[in-house]
């Protein structure tokens, strides 16, 4: 737990985001976009890579299984495309953008825990070819998403 806080603080100070006072602060990276169902997306031209956020993996618990979509599968913004299992719960994951699946992270089949230990890097889930680049406008930037997470966590 202490190591995670240290990591979060280092990432936060590097990216100049303030770490919340509540103890564990989920890391939010500046150059990504975020959906309100806690998925992140990195857009590069007409390709996008996405996964679930640090906030999401913390709230899930240890991931033991990731259900990946097939290559060529169509995904739609806001719709479920796969699931993860943790603590005897399967949680749907929604696609933050619309497009066609061109690559999935096969490492997650053997090492689903990468979603927990490296949600933004080795724990990426899907790469798609975008069908509507304009859709990214509907997503949150890092500041909005940080605030969104704080508001959600304040509910209990």
């Amino acid at each position, binding site marked *: 737990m202490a190591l995670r806080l240290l990591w979060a603080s280092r990432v936060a100070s590097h990216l100049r985001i303030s770490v919340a006072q509540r103890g564990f602060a989920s890391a939010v990276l500046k150059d990504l976009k975020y959906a309100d*169902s806690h998925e992140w997306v990195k857009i590069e031209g007409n390709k996008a890579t996405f996964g679930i956020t640090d906030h*999401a993996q*913390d*709230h*899930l*618990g*240890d991931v*033991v*299984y990731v*259900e990946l979509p097939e290559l060529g599968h169509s995904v739609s913004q806001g719709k*479920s495309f796969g*699931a993860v*299992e*943790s*603590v*005897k*719960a*399967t*949680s*749907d994951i*929604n696609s933050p953008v619309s497009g066609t699946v061109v690559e999935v992270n096969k490492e997650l089949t053997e090492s689903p825990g990468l979603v927990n230990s490296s949600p933004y890097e080795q724990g990426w889930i899907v790469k798609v070819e975008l069908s509507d680049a304009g859709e990214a406008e509907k997503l949150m930037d890092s500041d909005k998403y940080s605030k969104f997470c704080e508001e*959600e*966590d*304040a*509910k*209990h």
Partner: protein
Amino acid sequence: MRSPRILEVWRLGTVNYLKFLKIQDKLVSERKAHQIPDTLLSLEHPPTYTLGKRRTDHNLLIPQSQLTKIGAELHYTQRGGDITFHGPHQAILYPIISLRSIGFGARNYVETLERSMIEFASMYGVKARPGNKCETGVWVGDRKIGAIGVRISSGITCHGLAFNIDPDLNYFEHIVPCGIADKEVTSLRRETDALLPSEEVIHKQLITCLAKAFSYDDVLWKEDPSVILDTQR
């Protein structure tokens, strides 16, 4: 001032598993569309084995062809967790609730389900504990008394928990329960000498423990189960 949180509870008696799945699908859609409030189904199943999304049927130790001989059915589901058994005298609660309105993720949700069962067990002097890592559920020592397997879709929960009041534990011999070998399954009947009241009373107590654990302001006991059991509507 926030609006009060209400839980609507339907007590349905014994419901066949496939019929329950139809009811659940309908309620989940209605909850997602904000047509109904947070809802809880309280029921029992006839002897039924169920598998989770990972389809771990290697944990069924008898051939599927033998199941009718022992009077049981087998169903595949989309819930998390491994293989389990449901049967008479096992109290099942299926919460269909919104986690987003309380800012809960899977971990908080499951931990609160565990706490509900632990609190309930303590009413009979049974000291239960949550599972260790990878052993989600409720245990008395090394014996499992309560199981959990849930699904969360768009922040709405389905499936739920099963607490062993006094089921026929022999049915568990035909599976590796929850995929955990060499651990026993137990029941409230086995763990306490206390006089157990009627199952209706027991179910109500378990429901009340859950409602308290999730901080509901009020529980609305729905009187007419036929409203929900009629899935043709």
